[in-house]
C-alpha cells in the first residue's frame, strides 16, 4: 500500500523553480532516502509535504488522502511527523516535557478543564507522561528525562526530536539529515534506531541524508533530486551507479574536457 505520495509537485520562489513536477510514491513500511546536491530542493520538498510551504502545483497524499494545503498542525494530527537539521526542541523545557508537547495536539480536554485541573485532565496528563517515558526508553534516552533540552549534545537533541515525533504514533516521519555530525559509532546506532522505528513501530520513514553510508545501509529505495527535478529513483545500489546521478554530483566528464580544450 502506498503510504505517502507526491503527484506533480511544483513551487517557485521568484523566478526559480525550487520543485518542478516532482512525483514519487513511498510504500508502507519503507525507508526512503532523498539525496541530491545542495540546492536541489530536498528541504523544500519536506516543507511542502508537512504543510509549512504551500505548493503551486500538484498534490500530496497521506495514506491515500489528500493533505495538500492543510495547516501543519492538521497534517501532524493526520499522522505525519517531521524533524529538522537543527534541533527544534523547546528551550526552557525538560526532555520529558518536550516529548509531552508531541501529544498536545490531540488533547480533548477543553480550556477550562485544562486550566482548573479536573480528573479527566489529570488522567490525560498522566497518560501523556507515560507515553513520553516509553518513547524515551525506545530511543534509549530515558536517563536524560529531566535535563533541560538545550543541555544535550546536538546528536542527542536530534534523537529526542525523533522520539517526540514518535509519541503521537505517526504513520510517516520525515527526517532532515538525521546523521549530520555523528561519529561512526553514533551512525551505527542511528542506523539501528531507524530500522527499529520501522520494524517495531510500523512507521514509514522519508529522510534527506548526505551521509551515503547511512543511505546505502538503511534505505530501501532512494529518490534523487537535482535542480528541483527527480532525476533518478531506485534501490541504493542501482541509483549510485546511475550515470545521471554521478553526473549530478561530479559533473559531466565530457563537458569538462571540452571546456579545457
Amino acid at each position: 500500500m502506498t503510504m505517502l505520495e507526491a503527484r506533480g509537485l511544483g513551487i517557485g520562489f521568484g523566478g526559480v523553480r525550487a520543485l518542478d513536477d516532482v512525483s514519487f510514491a513511498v510504500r508502507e513500511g519503507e525507508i526512503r532516502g532523498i539525496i541530491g546536491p545542495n540546492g536541489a530542493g530536498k528541504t523544500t520538498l519536506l516543507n511542502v509535504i508537512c504543510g509549512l510551504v504551500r505548493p503551486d502545483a500538484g498534490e500530496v497524499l497521506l495514506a491515500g488522502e489528500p493533505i495538500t494545503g492543510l495547516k501543519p498542525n492538521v497534517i501532524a494530527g493526520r499522522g505525519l511527523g517531521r524533524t529538522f537539521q537543527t534541533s527544534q526542541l523547546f528551550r526552557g523545557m525538560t526532555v520529558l516535557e518536550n516529548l509531552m508537547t508531541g501529544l498536545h495536539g490531540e488533547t480533548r480536554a477543553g480550556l477550562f478543564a485544562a486550566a482548573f485541573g479536573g480528573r479527566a485532565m489529570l488522567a490525560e496528563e498522566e497518560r501523556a507522561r507515560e507515553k513520553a517515558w516509553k518513547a524515551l526508553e525506545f530511543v534509549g534516552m530515558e536517563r536524560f528525562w529531566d535535563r533541560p533540552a538545550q543541555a544535550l549534545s546536538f546528536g542527542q537533541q536530534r534523537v529526542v526530536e525523533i522520539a517526540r515525533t514518535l509519541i503521537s504514533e505517526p504513520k510517516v516521519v520525515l527526517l532532515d539529515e538525521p546523521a549530520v555530525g555523528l561519529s561512526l559509532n553514533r551512525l551505527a546506532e542511528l542506523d539501528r534506531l531507524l530500522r527499529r522505528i520501522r520494524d517495531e513501530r510500523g512507521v514509514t520513514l522519508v529522510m534527506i541524508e548526505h551521509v551515503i553510508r547511512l543511505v546505502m545501509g538503511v534505505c530501501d529505495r532512494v529518490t534523487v533530486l537535482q535542480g528541483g527535478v527527480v532525476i533518478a529513483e531506485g534501490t541504493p545500489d542501482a541509483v549510485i551507479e546511475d550515470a545521471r546521478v554521478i553526473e549530478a554530483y561530479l559533473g559531466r566528464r565530457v563537458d569538462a574536457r571540452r571546456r579545457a580544450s
Partner: protein
Amino acid sequence: MLGYLVLSGITTGALYALVALGVVIVFKATGTVNFAHGDLFMIGGFLAFTFHVLMGLPYLVALALAVAAGFGIGILTDRIAFRPLMRANLVSLVLATVGFSFILKGIARSVWGGKADLFAFPPLISPDPIFLGPLIIIPQQLVAIGGAALVMGAFAAFFRLTRIGKMMQATADNPKAATLVGIRTDRVYMYAFGVGAAVAASAAVLMAPLTLLYPDIGFVLFIKGFAAAVLGGLSSLPGAVVGGLVVGVVEALAGGYINSSFLEVSAFVVIMVVLVLRPTGLFGATAVRRV
C-alpha cells in the same frame, strides 16, 4: 512616612504587576505588544462596577464575572485586532491594537458616562486605617496585595502545570516546531489574549475599591504595566512581577519625597532608564530575539 509609602507602593505595584503579566504573556506568545491591554483592564473594572454597585451582586461574584468577561473580551481582541493581521508587519499589528483601545474607550464612555466621570467603588472592608506603630495600614491594601498574590500564584501554576500553559511556552519559544508537533498555534494566541485580559480584569477589580474608575484609566495603567514589563525584560513572567513592584514603589517614593506631580512621570523615567542602561531588562536575556 517611608513605611506608608513603601506599603502603598507595593500595593499599586502588585496591581501593575498583574497588568504587566498580561502584556508579557501576549508578547511572549505573539511577539506583539497589545496597546489595548490597559483598556481591557478598564472594561474589567467597569463591568465589576456594574455587577457589584449597580446590580448589587456580591463582590466575589462580580470579580468572577468580570474575570470571565475579561477573558471573552481578550479573545475578541485576538479576533478583531490580531488574527486578521497575523501575517502583516509589526507596525500594522500594533496600530490595530491601538485602534481597538480607542474602540473600548469609546464603548466605556457611551455606556458609563462622559469623559470626566469618576466612579467610586465602595470599599470591601472598613476603610479605617490601622495604626501599627509608625505604620499606617489601610486594610483594603492588604486585600489587594493578597488578591494579587493569589492571582499570580494561579497564573504561575496555570503556565507551568497545565497543558495549555505548556503549549503557550512551546509556541512562544518556537512557533514552527509547535505547529509541527500538532499544536494549534492560532488557538494559543487566542488563549494568550484571553488569559492576559482575564488577569487585567482581576487587577481592575482589586484596584477599584482603592481608587476611582474613569474611562481613561486604561492608558495610565497600560503605561505603568508596560514600564514594569520592559523593566522585567518584556518576556519574563517573574520579571513582570518584580518590574511591577519596582515601578509601584519608585512611583510612591517619588510622589512622596520629591513632588506628587512626579508620581505620574516616574513610570516613563523608569522606561527610559531601563532602555538606556539595560535594554534587555532585568530578566530578559532573550528579549531581543523576536522583535
